[in-house]
Structure formats: structure tokens, C-alpha cells
């Protein structure tokens, strides 16, 4: 039975990865799960400099979901390489590094730094974080800026490039096509959806940042639709995510057109989710007598 898939030139032993920002830098989960079983480890978004992040509260639990506005707290490229890379580079599975910047030049510079590091599996361009004032979402909702960012990173690195699209657009097709045309090897769909909650007792927003990104099972039907539409618009592979809790959810993404998937918020409440998804996917393929996981991709008709 073949579970392996390709994301650009990168081969994943199975299509199940984790979502950036929900898995730290991998090491944190190592006591609980065997990271080497995953398709890939995807780390939290990194820009050039360290980032302090937003004030607290930063997350709030909502019906079947989570609202977050972390503000991309992180160690910066150097901090990451010093603190986390020694562990990650020893893994048998690839590490995908989620990167961002506040300018096109910063994106490219971060890409260049990781290109020269050696051993990185792929770069995921986060052009869609809804929780950052400068940078983040505007790159993901403006087709021209998106093209520029992707093209600049394409020039800066040989590594497989994955563009993580914003769900917050009228139609995802032009963005998917722009990323493809500018040299992206794959797409990640979707990032969290802009949302908000208010405490009626205090009349204050539940998040210090006021608005945040909605994730978890509540957004799955939105994510499935975006993957479905993007898959019809481009030839490059898609990593689908948004509310995956079990193998059935992951298979739904594959059928919609995703070549791989990522487990996000579910890691927080059930760290075994990604491994359960892999096991469940295997079982499903056995039951359906499928030899190759790629025979599921885009098979919803």
C-alpha cells in the first residue's frame, strides 16, 4: 500500500502533516508521539527577527472551535536555528518551515536564510495570518502582492515553496493561480478565518487583539469548499487543513482535491490525532481495497 505523496520535489512518507502554529517546533510533542511517523513536521511562523506577539488573552474557546490571536510570537531566524534546528534536523521526516515578513524583501531574506541552512524540507509562505497589523493577511488578499511575494521567494530559494492562502477572499481561484504562476510548488489551504467574540459581562472583546482567527471543526466545511475550488483551478498539489479531527475528515479533504493534509487545533486537545489519522487512513484504504493514497485525491465527483 502506498501512502507517500509528493509536494514539489519533497516526498512525504504519508500525507499527514501538522499545521503551523499548532505544533510548536516539534520537540514539544516528542514526549507524547513519535514524530517520525508523520508525513512532515511544520513549525510555527518565523520572521527574520524575534517577535514578542500579542497581549493576552490570546485564545478563546468557541463552539466547536478556537479563536486565536497569538501574533506570531517567535524566536526569529537565528533564535530558531540555535534553539530548535539541532533537534529538528535529526528527525527522519522533513521539516517544513512556515515563514513570514512585513515586506516582500523580508520574505525573500528569510527564504534565503533557510535555503542556505541545508536540510530544510520545504518553506511554507504564510501570507494569510489575520492577527498581525503589518504584513500577514494583506499579502494573501491582494493578488499582485501575493505574486510578488511568491516570485521573490522563488528567486531566493531552491527549496519547495508552499503558499498558504487566505480563506478571506471572494474566490480563491485567482489567488491559487497567482501563486502557481509565480512559482509556488504547492498550496496550503486554509489559514484561520477572521472572527471575534465578546464577553457580555465585561463588554470587552475576548481577545486582547480584538479580532482573531477561527479554527477547528467549525470551519471544516469552509475549508473543504476552498480546497475543492482551488484544486479545480491549479495543477500543483494542495495541503488541506481546517478542523481535521480524524481519518474521515482527512479523507474528505483528499477527495476534495488535497494531496496531503495537516492536523491543527486538534493537536491541542488530542495530541494523538495525526497518528490516529494515519492509522485510520490505512484502515480505510484496506477496507476499500485501495493500493495508493493518491487514488483518493480529487475523487469527489
Amino acid at each position, binding site marked *: 500500500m502506498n501512502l507517500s505523496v509528493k509536494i514539489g520535489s519533497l516526498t512525504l512518507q504519508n500525507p499527514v502533516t501538522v499545521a503551523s502554529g499548532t505544533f510548536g517546533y516539534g520537540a514539544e510533542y516528542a514526549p507524547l508521539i513519535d514524530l517520525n511517523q508523520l508525513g512532515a513536521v511544520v513549525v510555527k511562523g518565523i520572521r527574520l527577527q524575534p517577535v*514578542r506577539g500579542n497581549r493576552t488573552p490570546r485564545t478563546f474557546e468557541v463552539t466547536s472551535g*478556537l479563536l486565536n490571536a497569538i501574533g506570531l510570537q517567535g524566536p526569529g531566524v537565528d533564535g530558531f536555528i540555535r534553539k530548535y534546528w539541532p533537534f529538528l534536523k535529526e528527525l527522519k521526516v522533513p521539516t517544513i518551515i512556515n515563514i513570514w515578513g512585513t515586506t516582500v524583501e523580508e520574505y525573500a531574506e528569510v527564504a534565503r536564510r533557510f535555503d542556505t541552512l541545508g536540510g530544510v524540507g520545504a518553506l511554507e509562505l504564510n501570507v494569510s495570518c489575520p492577527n498581525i497589523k503589518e504584513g500577514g493577511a494583506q499579502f494573501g488578499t491582494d493578488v499582485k502582492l501575493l505574486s510578488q511575494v511568491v516570485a521573490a521567494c522563488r528567486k531566493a530559494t531552491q527549496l519547495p515553496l508552499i503558499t498558504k492562502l487566505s480563506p478571506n477572499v471572494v474566490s480563491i481561484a485567482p489567488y491559487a493561480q497567482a501563486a502557481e504562476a509565480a512559482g509556488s510548488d504547492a498550496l496550503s489551504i486554509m489559514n484561520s478565518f477572521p472572527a471575534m467574540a465578546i464577553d457580555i459581562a465585561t463588554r470587552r472583546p475576548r481577545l486582547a487583539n480584538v479580532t482573531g482567527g477561527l479554527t477547528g471543526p467549525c470551519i471544516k466545511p469552509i475549508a473543504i469548499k476552498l480546497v475543492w475550488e482551488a484544486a479545480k483551478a491549479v495543477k500543483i498539489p494542495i495541503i488541506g487543513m481546517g478542523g481535521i479531527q480524524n481519518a474521515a475528515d482527512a479523507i474528505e479533504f483528499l477527495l476534495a482535491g488535497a494531496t496531503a493534509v495537516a492536523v491543527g487545533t486538534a493537536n491541542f486537545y488530542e495530541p494523538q490525532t495525526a497518528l490516529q489519522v494515519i492509522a485510520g487512513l490505512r484502515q480505510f484504504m484496506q477496507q476499500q481495497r485501495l493500493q495508493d493514497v493518491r487514488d483518493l485525491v480529487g475523487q469527489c465527483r
Partner: protein
Amino acid sequence: MVEQTVQIVSNQRDTDLYFRLVVRAPQIAPLVQPGQFVHLRILPLKHALLRRPFSIFQVSGDTLSILYKSVGQGTEVLSQMPPGDELSMIGPLGHGFTVPAAGGETPLLVAGGYGMAALYLLAQRSPQKGIVFVGGRRRVDILCEEEFRALGWEVRATTEDGSHGEKGLVTHALQTELGRRAPGRKLFACGPTPMLKAVGQLAAEFNLPAELSLDEHMACGIGVCLTCVVPIQTGDGWEYQRTCTEGPVFDSRQVAWEEAK
């Protein structure tokens, strides 16, 4: 840190809205250090996804217990779960209290409400005995006083409505005691944030070391989501550290409360 499905051994009302839950958790119980916590997934909660953090109250063989207050949807559902039901538990988590060394400083423990739960193991494992200051709004908020006495600790209770012990805030009783300026003392506190801030101030005022166990909202509980951060003084400035990983126990001098708002 282990993830384990645990079985409820007992789950009984203590006073009012407080409950004691005992579970069989053979992989977790032996590892517990005072001040650590578990992250509980209350499985019948379906549309509320996150785990809930609780201090580890007592440990006995392969069981451990928590002492919790029913305050919201998760704890309410938990309070109705019968023995035999299962929970998913990750633990022990976090960086706990420094257990006082024999012959070292005299520990003064300060607890508000369910804060007592975080301090029991510390009292039990500390070779040095000391005083426990425990406060609450009403009589029912004063938990496990006798159990601390049974460990040989002195307990001073305060209630805001005067229905039990001294009337007033627990930090007031503490202040009075600190006013005696007995040498070689160290504070350990767990309770609501305003109480912790007050304890921190007293520690500064009397120039005493203090370890505070903070209560911050958590999502992952294991250091990846960066929900639970608090501003912590570093050499030249401050940075956000994680209550679930670098904490929940922090040196009071390091907590940069003023940066948080």
C-alpha cells in the same frame, strides 16, 4: 509527560461547588512534583474542545486526585461523571514549586480557594513545616484545612464574610504574620491573580523570596500554542514565557505584571 486514559475512582462533592476527583493514573502519578498540573479532556464535552488544567492535589500509589470547583461547562459536566467513566489526562505538566530543604527557610503557604490544591503536595513533601494561610469568601471556600493540620502544619484561615476563621483577606493575615519579621522565611502562593499580586508585593516589601503559581487560560498545556504566556523579567527587559511550561510556578520577582496590561 504522559498521555493516558484514566478511570474515575471517585468523584465527590467536598463543600458547596467544590469536588474531589480521584483517578487511577499509574503512568502519571509516580512522576508528580508539587505544583504540577494535569490537562484533562472531559470526553462528554463535544462542542467545547479544549482540555482543562487542574493542579495535582494528592497522589497515592497509582492514583492521583484533583480538587476542583464547578465554575463552567467543563467542570459542571465533570462533576456529574460517575466512577468508572473515563477521562483523557496529560501530565504531569509544568514546572512546580521548589520543595524547601530540611533546615532551610520556613515555608509560608498562601492559598485562595482551590489554590489549596496546588499546595498540598508541597506541604506533604516538605521536610520543613510551616504555616498555611488559607482564604476564601465564605466558609465553604476553605478547603482541606484539616488535611494540612494532619500533616503537622499550622493553618490560619480567613474568610471575607467572617463565617470561618479570621474575618478579612488572606493577605491581611499574611501581612500581620510577616510584620513579626521572623527570619528565614519563604512564601509559596496559589490562588486568584489579585491575591498573587498582593503576595508578590508583600514579598517585595518584606524582602522575602516567593514562588507564585499562576492561573492562566491554556489551550495546549504543553508549550506549543503560546496562549498562556505571562511577561517575565529577563536580563535587560521582559519576554513572554509560558505558564504551562516555564510555569505555572514563577519567582515572584520575575513576574512583570505591569507589562501585561
